[in-house]
Protein backbone atom coordinates (compact mmCIF):
# COMPACT_ATOMS: atom_id res chain seq x y z
CA UNK A 1 0.00 0.00 0.00
CA UNK A 2 1.30 3.40 -1.01
CA UNK A 3 -0.31 6.50 0.46
CA UNK A 4 0.34 10.05 -0.70
CA UNK A 5 -1.04 12.98 1.25
CA UNK A 6 -0.85 16.45 -0.22
CA UNK A 7 2.34 15.46 -2.01
CA UNK A 8 3.91 18.50 -3.65
CA UNK A 9 7.22 18.98 -5.45
CA UNK A 10 8.42 22.25 -6.84
CA UNK A 11 11.41 22.60 -9.16
CA UNK A 12 12.25 26.29 -9.30
CA UNK A 13 9.03 28.01 -10.30
CA UNK A 14 7.50 24.89 -11.77
CA UNK A 15 5.14 22.72 -9.77
CA UNK A 16 5.94 19.20 -10.95
CA UNK A 17 3.60 17.55 -8.45
CA UNK A 18 0.77 19.55 -6.98
CA UNK A 19 -1.13 18.44 -3.86
CA UNK A 20 -1.39 14.78 -4.85
CA UNK A 21 -3.37 12.57 -2.50
CA UNK A 22 -4.02 8.98 -3.43
CA UNK A 23 -3.81 5.43 -2.17
CA UNK A 24 -2.43 2.54 -4.18
CA UNK A 25 -4.42 -0.38 -2.82
CA UNK A 26 -2.83 -3.80 -2.42
CA UNK A 27 -3.48 -6.77 -4.65
CA UNK A 28 -4.33 -5.06 -7.89
CA UNK A 29 -2.77 -3.27 -10.84
CA UNK A 30 -3.06 0.47 -10.50
CA UNK A 31 -2.33 2.37 -13.67
CA UNK A 32 -0.74 5.78 -13.25
CA UNK A 33 -1.64 7.79 -16.28
CA UNK A 34 -0.85 11.16 -17.63
CA UNK A 35 0.64 12.90 -20.63
CA UNK A 36 4.41 13.30 -20.82
CA UNK A 37 5.60 15.80 -18.24
CA UNK A 38 2.53 15.35 -16.04
CA UNK A 39 4.64 14.44 -13.01
CA UNK A 40 4.44 10.63 -13.03
CA UNK A 41 8.17 10.01 -12.74
CA UNK A 42 8.58 12.73 -10.13
CA UNK A 43 5.82 11.14 -8.06
CA UNK A 44 7.58 7.78 -8.23
CA UNK A 45 10.90 9.38 -7.31
CA UNK A 46 9.19 10.97 -4.30
CA UNK A 47 7.85 7.57 -3.25
CA UNK A 48 11.40 6.17 -3.32
CA UNK A 49 12.89 9.13 -1.49
CA UNK A 50 15.07 10.07 -4.46
CA UNK A 51 13.48 13.51 -4.36
CA UNK A 52 12.35 15.19 -1.19
CA UNK A 53 8.79 16.57 -1.24
CA UNK A 54 8.39 20.33 -1.00
CA UNK A 55 5.24 19.68 1.01
CA UNK A 56 3.15 16.68 1.97
CA UNK A 57 4.24 13.11 2.47
CA UNK A 58 4.14 9.67 0.97
CA UNK A 59 4.41 6.37 2.81
CA UNK A 60 4.96 2.75 1.84
CA UNK A 61 3.17 0.31 4.12
CA UNK A 62 2.60 3.16 6.52
CA UNK A 63 6.26 4.20 6.74
CA UNK A 64 8.45 6.68 4.98
CA UNK A 65 10.48 4.78 2.40
CA UNK A 66 13.79 5.69 4.05
CA UNK A 67 12.59 4.17 7.35
CA UNK A 68 11.80 0.73 5.94
CA UNK A 69 13.94 -2.00 7.51
CA UNK A 70 14.47 -3.89 4.24
CA UNK A 71 13.32 -1.62 1.41
CA UNK A 72 13.78 -4.25 -1.32
CA UNK A 73 11.40 -6.54 0.50
CA UNK A 74 8.66 -3.93 0.57
CA UNK A 75 8.91 -2.33 -2.84
CA UNK A 76 10.75 -3.20 -6.02
CA UNK A 77 11.03 -0.40 -8.53
CA UNK A 78 12.03 -0.03 -12.13
CA UNK A 79 12.20 3.66 -12.92
CA UNK A 80 14.81 3.67 -15.63
CA UNK A 81 16.27 0.55 -17.22
CA UNK A 82 19.42 2.51 -18.08
CA UNK A 83 20.15 3.30 -14.42
CA UNK A 84 22.91 0.68 -14.26
CA UNK A 85 26.68 0.81 -14.51
CA UNK A 86 27.19 -0.57 -18.01
CA UNK A 87 30.63 -1.90 -17.17
CA UNK A 88 29.26 -4.34 -14.63
CA UNK A 89 27.92 -7.76 -15.56
CA UNK A 90 24.23 -8.48 -15.09
CA UNK A 91 25.11 -10.94 -12.33
CA UNK A 92 27.33 -8.53 -10.42
CA UNK A 93 24.81 -5.72 -10.82
CA UNK A 94 22.12 -7.82 -9.20
CA UNK A 95 24.53 -9.19 -6.59
CA UNK A 96 25.58 -5.76 -5.36
CA UNK A 97 21.93 -4.77 -5.04
CA UNK A 98 20.98 -8.01 -3.26
CA UNK A 99 23.79 -7.59 -0.75
CA UNK A 100 22.49 -4.23 0.45
CA UNK A 101 19.40 -5.94 1.82
CA UNK A 102 21.02 -9.17 2.99
CA UNK A 103 19.44 -11.17 0.18
CA UNK A 104 21.24 -14.48 -0.42
CA UNK A 105 23.33 -14.96 -3.56
CA UNK A 106 21.14 -17.80 -4.89
CA UNK A 107 18.26 -15.36 -5.34
CA UNK A 108 20.32 -13.58 -8.01
CA UNK A 109 20.36 -16.78 -10.07
CA UNK A 110 16.63 -17.21 -9.53
CA UNK A 111 15.64 -13.77 -10.79
CA UNK A 112 18.03 -14.05 -13.75
CA UNK A 113 16.25 -17.27 -14.64
CA UNK A 114 12.89 -15.66 -14.16
CA UNK A 115 13.54 -12.88 -16.66
CA UNK A 116 15.46 -15.11 -19.06
CA UNK A 117 18.89 -13.49 -18.74
CA UNK A 118 20.80 -16.50 -17.38
CA UNK A 119 22.76 -16.95 -20.61
CA UNK A 120 24.08 -13.38 -20.57
CA UNK A 121 24.52 -13.11 -16.80
CA UNK A 122 28.29 -12.73 -17.10
CA UNK A 123 28.11 -10.17 -19.90
CA UNK A 124 28.52 -6.48 -19.25
CA UNK A 125 25.16 -4.78 -19.41
CA UNK A 126 26.29 -1.96 -21.73
CA UNK A 127 25.89 -4.39 -24.62
CA UNK A 128 22.29 -5.16 -23.73
CA UNK A 129 19.38 -4.28 -25.99
CA UNK A 130 16.58 -2.13 -24.61
CA UNK A 131 14.47 -5.21 -23.97
CA UNK A 132 17.29 -6.99 -22.13
CA UNK A 133 17.96 -3.85 -20.08
CA UNK A 134 14.29 -3.78 -19.14
CA UNK A 135 14.46 -7.41 -18.07
CA UNK A 136 17.53 -6.69 -15.97
CA UNK A 137 15.70 -3.81 -14.29
CA UNK A 138 12.74 -6.07 -13.57
CA UNK A 139 15.05 -8.76 -12.19
CA UNK A 140 16.45 -6.14 -9.81
CA UNK A 141 12.95 -5.12 -8.74
CA UNK A 142 12.05 -8.76 -8.01
CA UNK A 143 15.20 -9.53 -5.99
CA UNK A 144 13.63 -8.85 -2.60
CA UNK A 145 10.38 -10.59 -3.51
CA UNK A 146 8.56 -7.33 -2.71
CA UNK A 147 4.90 -6.90 -1.91
CA UNK A 148 4.75 -3.82 -4.15
CA UNK A 149 6.19 -3.43 -7.62
CA UNK A 150 6.50 -0.05 -9.23
CA UNK A 151 7.25 0.35 -12.93
CA UNK A 152 7.70 3.63 -14.77
CA UNK A 153 6.69 3.36 -18.42
CA UNK A 154 7.85 -0.26 -18.62
CA UNK A 155 6.79 -0.88 -22.21
CA UNK A 156 8.33 2.26 -23.67
CA UNK A 157 10.34 1.40 -26.75
CA UNK A 158 9.81 -2.35 -26.46
CA UNK A 159 8.93 -4.59 -29.38
CA UNK A 160 5.53 -6.35 -29.36
CA UNK A 161 7.03 -9.49 -27.87
CA UNK A 162 8.59 -7.49 -25.05
CA UNK A 163 5.35 -5.62 -24.41
CA UNK A 164 3.42 -8.88 -24.19
CA UNK A 165 6.02 -10.29 -21.82
CA UNK A 166 5.78 -7.33 -19.45
CA UNK A 167 2.01 -7.35 -19.60
CA UNK A 168 1.85 -11.03 -18.70
CA UNK A 169 4.45 -10.59 -15.99
CA UNK A 170 2.46 -7.81 -14.36
CA UNK A 171 -0.68 -9.92 -14.45
CA UNK A 172 1.18 -12.90 -12.96
CA UNK A 173 2.61 -10.69 -10.20
CA UNK A 174 -0.78 -9.23 -9.42
CA UNK A 175 -2.21 -12.77 -9.46
CA UNK A 176 0.17 -13.60 -6.61
CA UNK A 177 -1.46 -10.89 -4.56
CA UNK A 178 1.16 -8.23 -5.15
CA UNK A 179 0.46 -4.55 -5.56
CA UNK A 180 1.43 -3.22 -8.97
CA UNK A 181 1.81 0.49 -9.61
CA UNK A 182 2.60 1.13 -13.24
CA UNK A 183 2.80 4.40 -15.11
CA UNK A 184 2.12 5.00 -18.76
CA UNK A 185 1.15 7.74 -21.13
CA UNK A 186 -0.59 5.16 -23.28
CA UNK A 187 -4.22 4.62 -22.42
CA UNK A 188 -4.43 1.53 -24.61
CA UNK A 189 -1.78 -0.17 -22.48
CA UNK A 190 -3.73 0.48 -19.30
CA UNK A 191 -6.98 -0.64 -20.87
CA UNK A 192 -5.34 -4.05 -21.25
CA UNK A 193 -3.68 -4.38 -17.88
CA UNK A 194 -4.93 -2.08 -15.16
CA UNK A 195 -7.75 -2.62 -12.68
CA UNK A 196 -7.65 0.85 -11.27
CA UNK A 197 -6.56 4.20 -12.62
CA UNK A 198 -4.91 7.28 -11.23
CA UNK A 199 -4.87 9.97 -13.86
CA UNK A 200 -2.73 13.07 -13.49
CA UNK A 201 -2.17 16.15 -15.60
CA UNK A 202 0.21 18.98 -14.80
CA UNK A 203 0.98 17.42 -11.44
CA UNK A 204 -2.65 17.30 -10.31
CA UNK A 205 -4.88 14.31 -9.77
CA UNK A 206 -7.62 14.28 -12.39
CA UNK A 207 -9.21 10.92 -11.76
CA UNK A 208 -9.00 8.06 -9.26
CA UNK A 209 -11.39 5.26 -10.25
CA UNK A 210 -11.72 1.85 -11.88
CA UNK A 211 -11.03 1.51 -15.59
CA UNK A 212 -14.68 0.78 -16.38
CA UNK A 213 -15.86 3.72 -14.35
CA UNK A 214 -13.33 5.96 -16.02
CA UNK A 215 -14.64 5.12 -19.47
CA UNK A 216 -18.22 5.43 -18.34
CA UNK A 217 -17.64 8.79 -16.73
CA UNK A 218 -15.49 10.32 -19.37
CA UNK A 219 -16.61 8.99 -22.69
CA UNK A 220 -19.61 10.18 -24.63
CA UNK A 221 -21.84 7.41 -25.87
CA UNK A 222 -22.45 7.85 -29.57
CA UNK A 223 -24.50 5.99 -32.14
CA UNK A 224 -23.49 5.32 -35.73
CA UNK A 225 -26.38 5.37 -38.24
CA UNK A 226 -26.45 4.63 -41.95
CA UNK A 227 -29.46 5.65 -43.93
CA UNK A 228 -30.30 6.77 -47.46
CA UNK A 229 -31.80 9.92 -45.94
CA UNK A 230 -29.21 11.24 -43.51
CA UNK A 231 -30.31 14.88 -43.77
CA UNK A 232 -33.86 14.17 -42.70
CA UNK A 233 -32.80 11.88 -39.85
CA UNK A 234 -30.23 14.42 -38.67
CA UNK A 235 -32.94 17.07 -38.42
CA UNK A 236 -35.16 14.71 -36.44
CA UNK A 237 -32.34 13.84 -34.04
CA UNK A 238 -31.50 17.49 -33.43
CA UNK A 239 -35.21 18.24 -32.92
CA UNK A 240 -35.32 15.46 -30.31
CA UNK A 241 -32.45 17.03 -28.41
CA UNK A 242 -29.44 15.20 -29.83
CA UNK A 243 -26.53 16.28 -31.97
CA UNK A 244 -25.06 14.78 -35.09
CA UNK A 245 -21.83 14.88 -36.99
CA UNK A 246 -21.00 13.30 -40.34
CA UNK A 247 -19.18 10.01 -39.88
CA UNK A 248 -16.93 7.96 -42.12
CA UNK A 249 -18.32 6.81 -45.49
CA UNK A 250 -21.55 8.79 -45.35
CA UNK A 251 -22.55 7.51 -41.93
CA UNK A 252 -24.11 9.78 -39.35
CA UNK A 253 -22.78 9.89 -35.80
CA UNK A 254 -25.39 10.87 -33.25
CA UNK A 255 -24.80 11.87 -29.67
CA UNK A 256 -27.11 12.64 -26.81
CA UNK A 257 -29.79 10.13 -27.65
CA UNK A 258 -29.88 6.42 -26.75
CA UNK A 259 -29.81 3.83 -29.53
CA UNK A 260 -33.45 2.75 -29.13
CA UNK A 261 -34.77 6.29 -29.40
CA UNK A 262 -32.94 6.86 -32.69
CA UNK A 263 -34.35 3.56 -34.00
CA UNK A 264 -37.85 4.60 -32.96
CA UNK A 265 -37.45 8.02 -34.59
CA UNK A 266 -36.48 6.42 -37.88
CA UNK A 267 -39.31 3.89 -37.71
CA UNK A 268 -41.97 6.46 -36.87
CA UNK A 269 -40.88 8.66 -39.78
CA UNK A 270 -40.52 5.84 -42.24
CA UNK A 271 -36.78 6.25 -42.71
CA UNK A 272 -34.94 3.14 -43.85
CA UNK A 273 -31.89 2.26 -41.73
CA UNK A 274 -28.91 0.31 -43.06
CA UNK A 275 -26.96 0.40 -39.82
CA UNK A 276 -27.65 1.34 -36.24
CA UNK A 277 -24.74 0.72 -33.87
CA UNK A 278 -23.70 2.05 -30.47
CA UNK A 279 -20.07 3.17 -30.44
CA UNK A 280 -18.18 3.23 -27.17
CA UNK A 281 -15.43 5.77 -27.05
CA UNK A 282 -12.20 4.03 -26.20
CA UNK A 283 -10.21 4.72 -23.08
CA UNK A 284 -7.70 6.47 -25.30
CA UNK A 285 -10.32 8.96 -26.43
CA UNK A 286 -11.58 9.46 -22.91
CA UNK A 287 -8.03 10.10 -21.77
CA UNK A 288 -7.36 12.57 -24.57
CA UNK A 289 -10.56 14.35 -23.72
CA UNK A 290 -9.75 14.53 -20.05
CA UNK A 291 -6.15 15.63 -20.32
CA UNK A 292 -6.47 17.90 -23.32
CA UNK A 293 -6.25 20.94 -21.10
CA UNK A 294 -3.38 19.61 -19.07
CA UNK A 295 -0.98 18.54 -21.79
CA UNK A 296 2.14 20.48 -21.16
CA UNK A 297 3.53 20.67 -24.65
CA UNK A 298 0.96 21.08 -27.37
CA UNK A 299 1.99 20.46 -30.93
CA UNK A 300 1.00 23.26 -33.24
CA UNK A 301 0.86 23.40 -36.98
CA UNK A 302 3.39 25.85 -38.45
CA UNK A 303 2.10 29.40 -38.32
CA UNK A 304 -0.48 28.61 -35.70
CA UNK A 305 -0.48 30.95 -32.74
CA UNK A 306 0.36 29.44 -29.41
CA UNK A 307 -2.69 29.95 -27.29
CA UNK A 308 -2.42 28.05 -24.06
CA UNK A 309 -6.11 28.31 -23.35
CA UNK A 310 -7.16 26.95 -26.72
CA UNK A 311 -7.85 23.55 -25.22
CA UNK A 312 -11.12 22.98 -27.03
CA UNK A 313 -9.78 23.86 -30.46
CA UNK A 314 -6.80 21.60 -29.90
CA UNK A 315 -9.09 18.65 -29.60
CA UNK A 316 -9.79 16.79 -32.75
CA UNK A 317 -13.40 16.22 -31.88
CA UNK A 318 -15.82 18.02 -34.16
CA UNK A 319 -18.52 19.81 -32.26
CA UNK A 320 -22.10 19.08 -33.23
CA UNK A 321 -23.76 20.16 -36.45
CA UNK A 322 -26.67 22.49 -35.95
Amino acid at each position, binding site marked *: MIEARGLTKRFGDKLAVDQLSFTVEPGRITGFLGPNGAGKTTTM*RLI*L*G*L*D*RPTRGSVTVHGKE*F*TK*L*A*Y*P*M*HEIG*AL*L*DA*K*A*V*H*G*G*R*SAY*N*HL*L*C*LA*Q*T*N*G*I*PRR*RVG*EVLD*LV*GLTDVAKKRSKGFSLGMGQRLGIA*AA*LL*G*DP*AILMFDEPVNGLDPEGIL*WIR*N*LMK*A*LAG*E*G*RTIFVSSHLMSEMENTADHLLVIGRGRLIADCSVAEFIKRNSVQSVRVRTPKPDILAELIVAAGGTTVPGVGGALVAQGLPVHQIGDLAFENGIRLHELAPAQASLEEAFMELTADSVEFHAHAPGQQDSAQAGSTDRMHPTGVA
Partner: protein
Amino acid sequence: MATTQIASAASQRLLLPETGRAGFGDALRSEFTKIKSTRSTYWTLLALVVVCVGIGALACAGTASHPQGVSPTNFDATQQSLAGLYVGQLVIAVLGALTITSEYSTGMIRTTLSVQPRRGVVFAAKAVVFAVVTLVIGLITSFGSFFVGQAILSSHHLSATLGEPNVLRAVIGGALFLTACGMLAYGLGAVLRHTAAAISATIGLLFVLTVLVQFLPQSWQDNVDKWMPAIAGSQIWTTKATGGPHLFSAWPGFAVLAGYAAVAIIAGLVCFRTRDA
Protein backbone atom coordinates in the same frame (compact mmCIF):
# COMPACT_ATOMS: atom_id res chain seq x y z
CA MET B 1 8.53 -16.58 -22.08
CA ALA B 2 6.80 -18.32 -19.24
CA THR B 3 6.47 -16.27 -16.13
CA THR B 4 4.32 -18.51 -14.10
CA GLN B 5 6.19 -18.63 -10.81
CA ILE B 6 7.72 -15.47 -9.38
CA ALA B 7 8.31 -17.28 -6.08
CA SER B 8 5.53 -17.73 -3.60
CA ALA B 9 5.29 -14.91 -1.15
CA ALA B 10 5.23 -17.25 1.85
CA SER B 11 8.41 -19.13 1.00
CA GLN B 12 10.33 -16.04 -0.06
CA ARG B 13 9.73 -14.30 3.23
CA LEU B 14 12.38 -16.67 4.55
CA LEU B 15 14.95 -15.03 2.30
CA LEU B 16 15.12 -12.05 4.56
CA PRO B 17 16.00 -11.91 8.22
CA GLU B 18 13.04 -11.60 10.55
CA THR B 19 14.56 -8.74 12.47
CA GLY B 20 17.12 -6.01 11.98
CA ARG B 21 17.44 -3.80 9.00
CA ALA B 22 19.55 -3.33 5.90
CA GLY B 23 22.63 -1.79 7.46
CA PHE B 24 26.24 -0.78 7.18
CA GLY B 25 27.67 -4.30 6.94
CA ASP B 26 25.34 -5.09 4.04
CA ALA B 27 26.32 -1.84 2.35
CA LEU B 28 30.03 -2.65 2.78
CA ARG B 29 29.58 -6.02 1.05
CA SER B 30 27.64 -4.35 -1.75
CA GLU B 31 30.19 -1.60 -2.29
CA PHE B 32 33.02 -4.12 -2.29
CA THR B 33 31.20 -6.07 -5.01
CA LYS B 34 30.78 -2.83 -6.95
CA ILE B 35 34.41 -1.75 -6.78
CA LYS B 36 35.75 -5.15 -7.79
CA SER B 37 33.28 -5.70 -10.63
CA THR B 38 34.29 -2.87 -12.93
CA ARG B 39 37.32 -2.91 -15.17
CA SER B 40 38.19 0.72 -14.48
CA THR B 41 39.15 -0.28 -10.93
CA TYR B 42 41.71 -2.80 -12.15
CA TRP B 43 43.14 -0.56 -14.83
CA THR B 44 43.46 2.39 -12.49
CA LEU B 45 45.08 0.38 -9.71
CA LEU B 46 47.43 -1.35 -12.15
CA ALA B 47 48.37 2.06 -13.55
CA LEU B 48 49.00 3.29 -10.02
CA VAL B 49 51.46 0.51 -9.20
CA VAL B 50 53.23 0.64 -12.57
CA VAL B 51 53.53 4.43 -12.65
CA CYS B 52 54.76 4.76 -9.07
CA VAL B 53 57.25 1.91 -9.15
CA GLY B 54 58.39 2.90 -12.65
CA ILE B 55 58.95 6.58 -11.90
CA GLY B 56 60.62 5.74 -8.59
CA ALA B 57 62.97 3.34 -10.38
CA LEU B 58 63.78 5.95 -13.05
CA ALA B 59 64.50 8.58 -10.41
CA CYS B 60 66.81 6.20 -8.56
CA ALA B 61 68.51 5.13 -11.76
CA GLY B 62 69.13 8.78 -12.57
CA THR B 63 70.78 9.31 -9.21
CA ALA B 64 72.73 6.09 -9.55
CA SER B 65 74.12 7.18 -12.90
CA HIS B 66 75.56 10.39 -11.40
CA PRO B 67 76.44 9.35 -7.86
CA GLN B 68 79.29 11.82 -7.58
CA GLY B 69 76.88 14.80 -7.22
CA VAL B 70 75.02 13.27 -4.29
CA SER B 71 75.75 14.32 -0.74
CA PRO B 72 74.97 11.33 1.49
CA THR B 73 73.89 13.56 4.38
CA ASN B 74 71.22 15.41 2.40
CA PHE B 75 70.16 12.62 0.06
CA ASP B 76 66.83 11.03 0.97
CA ALA B 77 66.98 7.61 -0.66
CA THR B 78 63.51 6.70 0.60
CA GLN B 79 61.89 9.81 -0.84
CA GLN B 80 63.77 9.31 -4.10
CA SER B 81 62.37 5.80 -4.51
CA LEU B 82 58.87 7.05 -3.72
CA ALA B 83 59.03 9.91 -6.27
CA GLY B 84 56.32 8.17 -8.32
CA LEU B 85 53.79 9.27 -5.72
CA TYR B 86 53.83 12.73 -7.32
CA VAL B 87 52.03 11.18 -10.27
CA GLY B 88 50.37 8.43 -8.25
CA GLN B 89 48.31 11.00 -6.34
CA LEU B 90 46.67 11.99 -9.60
CA VAL B 91 45.95 8.38 -10.60
CA ILE B 92 44.28 7.60 -7.28
CA ALA B 93 42.32 10.84 -7.54
CA VAL B 94 40.74 9.45 -10.71
CA LEU B 95 39.60 6.30 -8.92
CA GLY B 96 38.41 8.24 -5.87
CA ALA B 97 36.31 10.53 -8.01
CA LEU B 98 34.97 7.67 -10.13
CA THR B 99 33.87 5.73 -7.04
CA ILE B 100 31.05 8.20 -6.63
CA THR B 101 30.74 10.10 -9.93
CA SER B 102 30.32 6.94 -11.99
CA GLU B 103 27.10 6.34 -10.05
CA TYR B 104 25.82 9.67 -11.31
CA SER B 105 27.14 9.43 -14.87
CA THR B 106 25.56 6.00 -15.36
CA GLY B 107 22.38 6.72 -13.42
CA MET B 108 23.19 3.83 -11.08
CA ILE B 109 22.77 6.17 -8.10
CA ARG B 110 18.99 6.06 -8.55
CA THR B 111 19.05 2.27 -8.35
CA THR B 112 21.49 2.32 -5.42
CA LEU B 113 19.36 4.69 -3.38
CA SER B 114 16.12 2.92 -4.19
CA VAL B 115 17.42 -0.26 -2.55
CA GLN B 116 19.21 1.48 0.35
CA PRO B 117 17.65 4.90 0.88
CA ARG B 118 19.66 5.65 4.03
CA ARG B 119 22.17 7.82 2.28
CA GLY B 120 24.65 8.22 5.11
CA VAL B 121 25.06 4.43 5.14
CA VAL B 122 25.72 4.33 1.39
CA PHE B 123 28.16 7.24 1.50
CA ALA B 124 30.12 5.84 4.45
CA ALA B 125 30.26 2.31 3.01
CA LYS B 126 31.61 3.63 -0.30
CA ALA B 127 34.21 5.71 1.52
CA VAL B 128 35.38 2.85 3.72
CA VAL B 129 35.61 0.33 0.88
CA PHE B 130 37.50 2.77 -1.32
CA ALA B 131 39.85 3.78 1.53
CA VAL B 132 40.66 0.17 2.45
CA VAL B 133 41.27 -0.86 -1.16
CA THR B 134 43.45 2.20 -1.72
CA LEU B 135 45.40 1.63 1.47
CA VAL B 136 46.13 -2.00 0.55
CA ILE B 137 47.15 -1.18 -3.03
CA GLY B 138 48.98 1.88 -1.70
CA LEU B 139 51.08 -0.29 0.59
CA ILE B 140 51.94 -2.60 -2.30
CA THR B 141 52.85 0.45 -4.39
CA SER B 142 54.86 2.08 -1.68
CA PHE B 143 56.82 -0.98 -0.58
CA GLY B 144 57.29 -2.03 -4.21
CA SER B 145 58.68 1.39 -5.11
CA PHE B 146 60.94 1.37 -2.05
CA PHE B 147 62.47 -2.04 -2.65
CA VAL B 148 62.96 -1.54 -6.40
CA GLY B 149 64.46 1.92 -5.82
CA GLN B 150 66.81 0.76 -3.07
CA ALA B 151 67.97 -2.16 -5.19
CA ILE B 152 69.00 0.31 -7.88
CA LEU B 153 70.70 2.65 -5.41
CA SER B 154 72.43 -0.11 -3.45
CA SER B 155 75.18 -0.55 -6.04
CA HIS B 156 76.40 2.93 -5.10
CA HIS B 157 75.91 2.50 -1.36
CA LEU B 158 73.24 5.21 -1.33
CA SER B 159 70.36 2.94 -0.40
CA ALA B 160 68.31 3.03 2.78
CA THR B 161 66.88 0.12 4.76
CA LEU B 162 63.59 -0.18 6.59
CA GLY B 163 65.46 -0.31 9.88
CA GLU B 164 66.89 3.19 9.53
CA PRO B 165 65.20 6.10 11.32
CA ASN B 166 61.92 7.29 9.78
CA VAL B 167 62.16 4.92 6.80
CA LEU B 168 59.34 2.53 7.72
CA ARG B 169 57.12 5.49 8.63
CA ALA B 170 57.86 7.09 5.26
CA VAL B 171 57.10 3.94 3.27
CA ILE B 172 53.82 3.30 5.09
CA GLY B 173 53.22 7.04 4.89
CA GLY B 174 53.30 6.79 1.09
CA ALA B 175 50.23 4.57 1.24
CA LEU B 176 48.51 6.92 3.69
CA PHE B 177 49.29 9.84 1.40
CA LEU B 178 47.66 8.07 -1.56
CA THR B 179 44.63 7.19 0.54
CA ALA B 180 44.17 10.78 1.70
CA CYS B 181 44.47 12.10 -1.88
CA GLY B 182 41.89 9.54 -3.01
CA MET B 183 39.51 10.52 -0.23
CA LEU B 184 39.85 14.17 -1.17
CA ALA B 185 38.78 13.26 -4.70
CA TYR B 186 35.91 11.14 -3.36
CA GLY B 187 34.58 14.04 -1.31
CA LEU B 188 34.87 16.46 -4.21
CA GLY B 189 33.20 13.87 -6.44
CA ALA B 190 30.18 13.79 -4.14
CA VAL B 191 29.97 17.58 -4.20
CA LEU B 192 30.42 17.97 -7.97
CA ARG B 193 28.77 14.71 -9.17
CA HIS B 194 30.67 14.89 -12.41
CA THR B 195 33.76 12.83 -13.20
CA ALA B 196 35.73 15.38 -15.20
CA ALA B 197 34.87 18.22 -12.83
CA ALA B 198 35.84 16.22 -9.76
CA ILE B 199 39.15 15.06 -11.25
CA SER B 200 39.96 18.59 -12.43
CA ALA B 201 39.18 20.06 -9.03
CA THR B 202 41.32 17.48 -7.25
CA ILE B 203 44.25 17.95 -9.61
CA GLY B 204 43.85 21.69 -9.23
CA LEU B 205 44.06 21.41 -5.48
CA LEU B 206 46.89 18.87 -5.35
CA PHE B 207 49.01 19.75 -8.34
CA VAL B 208 48.25 23.13 -9.83
CA LEU B 209 48.29 24.89 -6.45
CA THR B 210 51.65 23.30 -5.70
CA VAL B 211 53.08 24.70 -8.93
CA LEU B 212 51.42 28.10 -8.59
CA VAL B 213 52.87 28.86 -5.16
CA GLN B 214 56.34 28.54 -6.70
CA PHE B 215 55.65 31.86 -8.44
CA LEU B 216 54.97 33.73 -5.22
CA PRO B 217 57.67 36.01 -3.74
CA GLN B 218 59.94 33.96 -1.50
CA SER B 219 58.76 35.62 1.73
CA TRP B 220 55.13 34.77 0.94
CA GLN B 221 55.98 31.33 -0.37
CA ASP B 222 57.43 30.18 2.92
CA ASN B 223 54.19 30.99 4.69
CA VAL B 224 51.87 29.67 2.00
CA ASP B 225 53.39 26.57 0.48
CA LYS B 226 53.53 24.55 3.68
CA TRP B 227 49.72 24.73 3.78
CA MET B 228 49.28 23.39 0.27
CA PRO B 229 47.69 19.93 0.56
CA ALA B 230 50.17 18.03 -1.62
CA ILE B 231 53.27 19.74 -0.17
CA ALA B 232 52.12 19.30 3.42
CA GLY B 233 50.98 15.71 2.86
CA SER B 234 54.19 14.72 1.07
CA GLN B 235 56.25 15.29 4.19
CA ILE B 236 55.11 11.95 5.52
CA TRP B 237 57.04 10.09 2.86
CA THR B 238 60.33 11.91 3.48
CA THR B 239 62.95 10.90 6.03
CA LYS B 240 64.88 14.17 5.98
CA ALA B 241 63.71 17.76 5.77
CA THR B 242 64.97 18.20 2.21
CA GLY B 243 62.18 20.62 1.27
CA GLY B 244 63.36 23.26 3.72
CA PRO B 245 63.06 23.86 7.46
CA HIS B 246 59.90 25.97 7.18
CA LEU B 247 57.74 23.02 6.07
CA PHE B 248 55.66 20.95 8.45
CA SER B 249 57.20 17.75 9.73
CA ALA B 250 55.78 14.37 8.75
CA TRP B 251 52.67 13.91 10.88
CA PRO B 252 51.52 17.54 11.17
CA GLY B 253 51.97 17.83 7.43
CA PHE B 254 49.88 14.74 6.85
CA ALA B 255 47.26 16.14 9.24
CA VAL B 256 46.97 19.20 6.98
CA LEU B 257 46.28 17.01 3.93
CA ALA B 258 43.88 14.86 5.96
CA GLY B 259 42.13 18.07 7.01
CA TYR B 260 41.55 19.04 3.37
CA ALA B 261 40.22 15.54 2.70
CA ALA B 262 37.97 15.68 5.77
CA VAL B 263 36.47 19.00 4.70
CA ALA B 264 35.82 17.61 1.21
CA ILE B 265 34.23 14.46 2.63
CA ILE B 266 31.98 16.34 5.05
CA ALA B 267 30.89 18.67 2.26
CA GLY B 268 30.31 15.62 0.06
CA LEU B 269 28.24 13.90 2.74
CA VAL B 270 26.09 16.99 3.24
CA CYS B 271 25.47 17.25 -0.52
CA PHE B 272 24.85 13.52 -0.83
CA ARG B 273 22.30 13.50 1.96
CA THR B 274 20.39 16.63 1.12
CA ARG B 275 20.28 16.93 -2.66
CA ASP B 276 17.74 15.14 -4.82
CA ALA B 277 19.43 12.17 -6.46
